[in-house]
């Protein structure tokens, strides 16, 4: 297992790649060297009224340069603060956190919506085999070009401004391929639909779920989700430590 660490990372670059969506490369060799697709980091703010680390998925890993990349949307004070960091600024981070995706390297569908898209990039890079990548956006797209390098990309937008108008699950349903694995990240309703599809169609699916977190490392029981054990009992598992990636048949949404 890769050890969690608290490290001071250095901002390598930051750009806004879509309205309110920021792309941040951090130099931190040790975390870069041990991170896996689907894992996340905890980003600490500098304003000391904000005590808790912000959980953000690892979007890309550059082991050679010792860097990791995160792509995030500004939704509140913390992400707003982080979006103002400049090259060479220092940020304290925790990572790598959680369990990433299990790479089965078969015919895969990667399906993600909105800010669930970033973790798909490193996954797509590392995953072997045929890859179909379904991406859902409200309107403006991002990361499409990069993801296109690793598989066939399908796009859905809510307003129809790019790709098909509608949602990613509609595309999944009409995909006429024999898929072995689904890897999914996005809002709960999407994950629910993916889970239903996967079970109905007997496809192995791994879902990355989200919960509000405090510690981010498994100590506080703040971030639990419901899972079913083999006997069908509900067991509350920690998204931060036991997840964020769960098997579709295991997790209740």
């Amino acid at each position, binding site marked *: 297992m890769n*050890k969690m660490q608290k490290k001071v990372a250095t901002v390598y670059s930051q750009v806004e790649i879509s309205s309110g969506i920021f792309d941040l490369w951090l130099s931190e060799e040790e975390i870069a060297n041990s991170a896996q697709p689907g894992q996340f980091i905890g980003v600490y703010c500098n304003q000391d009224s904000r005590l808790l680390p912000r959980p953000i998925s690892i979007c890309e890993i550059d082991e050679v340069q010792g860097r990791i990349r995160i792509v995030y949307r500004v939704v509140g004070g913390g992400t707003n603060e982080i979006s103002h960091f400049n090259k060479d600024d220092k940020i304290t981070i925790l990572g790598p956190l959680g369990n990433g995706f299990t790479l089965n390297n078969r015919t895969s569908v990667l399906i993600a919506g909105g800010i669930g898209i970033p973790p798909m990039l490193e996954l797509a890079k590392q995953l072997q085999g045929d890859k179909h990548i379904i991406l859902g956006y409200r309107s403006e797209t991002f990361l499409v070009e990069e993801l296109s390098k690793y598989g066939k990309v399908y796009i859905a937008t809510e307003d129809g401004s790019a790709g098909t108008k509608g949602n990613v699950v509609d595309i999944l349903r009409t995909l006429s391929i024999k898929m072995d694995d689904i890897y999914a990240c996005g809002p709960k309703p999407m994950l629910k639909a993916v889970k239903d599809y996967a079970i109905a169609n007997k496809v192995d699916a791994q879902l990355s779920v989200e919960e509000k977190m405090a510690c981010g490392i498994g100590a506080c029981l*703040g971030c639990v989700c419901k899972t079913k054990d083999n006997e069908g009992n509900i067991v509350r598992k920690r998204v931060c430590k036991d997840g964020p990636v769960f098997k579709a048949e295991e997790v209740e949404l």
Partner: protein
Amino acid sequence: MNLSVKIANVELKNPVTTASGTFGSGKEYNEFVDLNQLGGIITKGVSNIPWVGNETPRVAETYGGMMNAVGLQNPGIEKFIQNDLSFLQGFETKVIVNVCGKTIEDYCDVVRRLADQPVHMLEINISCPNVKEGGLAFGTDAAMIEKVTKEVKKYAKQPIIMKLSPNVTDIAEMAKAAEAGGADAISLINTLLGMKIDIHKRQFGVANKVGGISGPAIKPIAVRMVYQVAKAVKLPIIGLGGIMTGEDAIEFLMAGATAISVGTANFANPTATIDVLNGIEEFMNKYGIKDINEIIGCM
């Protein structure tokens, strides 16, 4: 330099312990700090049977603090003994088990079950704001505090620490009730009842609507209560509430606490416990304090 302190005849190698519910049983923080260096580990609250806790969201950030409504999710005492107590045996630190319950009998069950277990002290949580029965309902009624204390003392083989709620008009009265009931020590404060509303979604910050506020935001309230209780009872006190640094810890010691716990600070900084310990030593060095006991209750 002497850092060791005594609570009810149990010697802690230093005054730094972990606040219940913020440190699990130490497994996760073991990756960040050496648990052997801690004076004691106070574990997450455990009940006689498994509790599922509250719905999510269970946590939210507040200005200089956080709110939680975990609701004491725990696997029950049997699994706790199997997994957590056995894990903790591997470390040279004192083990203090935090006990929760919905009825007096629930508390007594757990206390009885732990009587012959390798546990150094028991902390009775009569002050959790996040469960409907037990918890806070007990912690805000002096007569009830005395009664719970008396009952658990009947079965306890280890010293009993009563953990008080700050959500009361007169904290000294609560402490006196615990003393009258035969408590061996007192810990305070648990969290302050709070609420957060997400005005954009018109939703409560935690599913339970109300939650407990912790973190540095509440420190001055905690220091005041420790001071008041120290003047009101003879029992040793474990002080907590917003301790982030060694200087914060010293403040609690000066106010009258014999030991302290580090809680929310662990989330803000996973090495907080050891950083606090180092900070205490630095302070002692700076002022040439040879024995930490010299400053306890010096105000």
